[in-house]
């Protein structure tokens, strides 16, 4: 029982990370049809800069972590918005080229990060409490899992509120469903493109700082590793569906934990098999719109 609980909560923590990356990917793809390979780099740069600022202010304290998180969110949002504005927008409606540009950006930035911060992981400090465990029903749960889950829930709630309550949210929801009809109602849908990139970048930026807490290090490949799973999550959840991304994040991460524990560390394989199975049975994913 305690093992089961530990696996589930650890899975939820990992799922929280996946969601922070996948939510932006899914919204961006849903609204703009852009498969954003640079999303992992948004996460990595935020993690690095968050760590750089955080450790200078106050290393290993809650205050330092909060600063890191704020820096990460800001960096993620700014870098993503700039990417959309400077690169993606020039290739309006040319989806293959847009994806290609993000591929190039991802290759170039990962190399740049390696040049600046080296190829080896840099271990990070975190507040003591996050390194300890809490006992629930006999299971010793690492405390950082709770932080991850709480943050992901906050982000989920925030994005949902934004989508439900604001005019831009309305435009984005409508645009995911039928972009050309939105323009046919006299709305410049492109303005919301930058916004969606910024929101996705902010979530990924927070994800970057939290990933450095979860893994205990930052590295140039932090984002690329998470990106592959985030892609899988996005596709399983249904491209463009925020709810789908949330559900699939949890399913994938928990499945991964269970397979790693009970099936001799085959978590990655099982996830891949799950993706293939879902796509073949239900090509549009769990919650995706009909293509």
């Amino acid at each position, binding site marked *: 029982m305690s093992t089961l609980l530990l696996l589930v909560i650890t899975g939820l923590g990992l799922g929280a990370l996946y969601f922070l990356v996948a939510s932006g990917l899914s919204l961006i793809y849903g609204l703009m049809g852009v498969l954003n390979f640079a999303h992992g780099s948004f996460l990595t740069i935020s993690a690095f800069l968050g760590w750089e600022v955080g450790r200078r202010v106050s290393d290993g304290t809650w205050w330092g972590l909060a600063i890191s998180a704020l820096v990460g969110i800001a960096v993620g949002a700014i870098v993503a918005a700039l990417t959309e504005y400077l690169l993606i927008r020039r290739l309006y409606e040319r989806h293959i080229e847009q994806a290609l540009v993000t591929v190039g950006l991802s290759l170039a930035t990962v190399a740049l990060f390696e040049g600046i911060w080296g190829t080896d992981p840099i271990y990070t400090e975190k507040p003591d409490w996050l390194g300890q465990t809490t006992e629930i029903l006999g299971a010793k749960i690492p405390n950082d899992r709770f932080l991850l889950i709480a943050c992901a829930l906050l982000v989920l709630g925030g994005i949902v509120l934004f989508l439900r309550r604001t005019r831009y949210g*309305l*435009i984005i*929801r*409508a645009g995911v*469903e*039928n972009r*050309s*009809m*939105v*323009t*046919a*109602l*006299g*709305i*410049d*849908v492109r303005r919301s493109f930058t916004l969606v990139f910024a929101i996705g970048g902010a979530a990924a930026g927070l994800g970057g700082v939290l990933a450095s807490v979860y893994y205990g290090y930052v590295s140039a490949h932090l984002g690329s590793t998470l990106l592959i799973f985030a892609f899988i999550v996005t596709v399983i959840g249904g491209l463009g569906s925020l709810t789908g991304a949330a559900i699939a994040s949890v399913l994938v991460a928990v499945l991964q934990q269970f397979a790693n524990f009970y099936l001799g560390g085959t978590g990655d394989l099982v996830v891949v098999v799950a993706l293939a199975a879902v796509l073949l049975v239900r090509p549009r994913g769990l919650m995706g*719109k009909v293509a």
Partner: protein
Amino acid sequence: MSEPILVVDRLAGRIAGQQVVEDVSFEVPATGVTALLGRNGVGKTSTIKSILGLIDRTGEVRLAGTRIDRLPTHRIVQRGVGYVPEDREVFGALTVAENLRLAERDARPRRELVEQLFPDLVQRRAQRAGTLSGGQQQMVSLARALVNENRILLVDEPTKGLAPKLVDEVAAALAAAAKTVPILLVEQNLHVIRKLADRVVVLSGGRVVFTGAATELLDDEDRIRRYLGVHDAADAVENTGTLEETR
């Protein structure tokens, strides 16, 4: 006659590199309903979409004398072009109220008018548009165009797939709208055309083959057969009647 509200001059449109509108020129007068007719696949919908810039196009389009053929779609619409697309294209995941709110461009949208015309929608404000019947979706689609003060409405097959009673309701709503705004209407149902259209423009093979008063065409069985491929107006009405709602 006063200056036309919309002038289309040698308009051509292409989708995926394929010519779907060859060379279309016509005018829409500043009042009344102008019907855009033709057999299936002659490019009526593509013509409307070309005017709106929803597909790649060349040629000239002038709205009240100003060229709009270089503008992106949203700017064209902002200049007072209301659009009711074929197949309604309501946002299924959004509620009726959200669909309407999204469409509101004016500082003072005409909510009362819409509520008057479509009382049914008031009750269903909170319902998701995707769960509405085809007729109700058409009302939403019409309401989205009527909630703003427009200089012209482009209405594409509003009665397609509707039961006869609903066809009459939609026609009545259009007739009411036509009192205040000129309409360019694509329509297959001859019964509706007879009731609404003042003028007709007939397309064939991607070009205009006939322009004139509606009566001129509708009173001529031979022309109807030649241009539209039906024998009898009554026939068309009957056929439409047998169609159940498709959504």
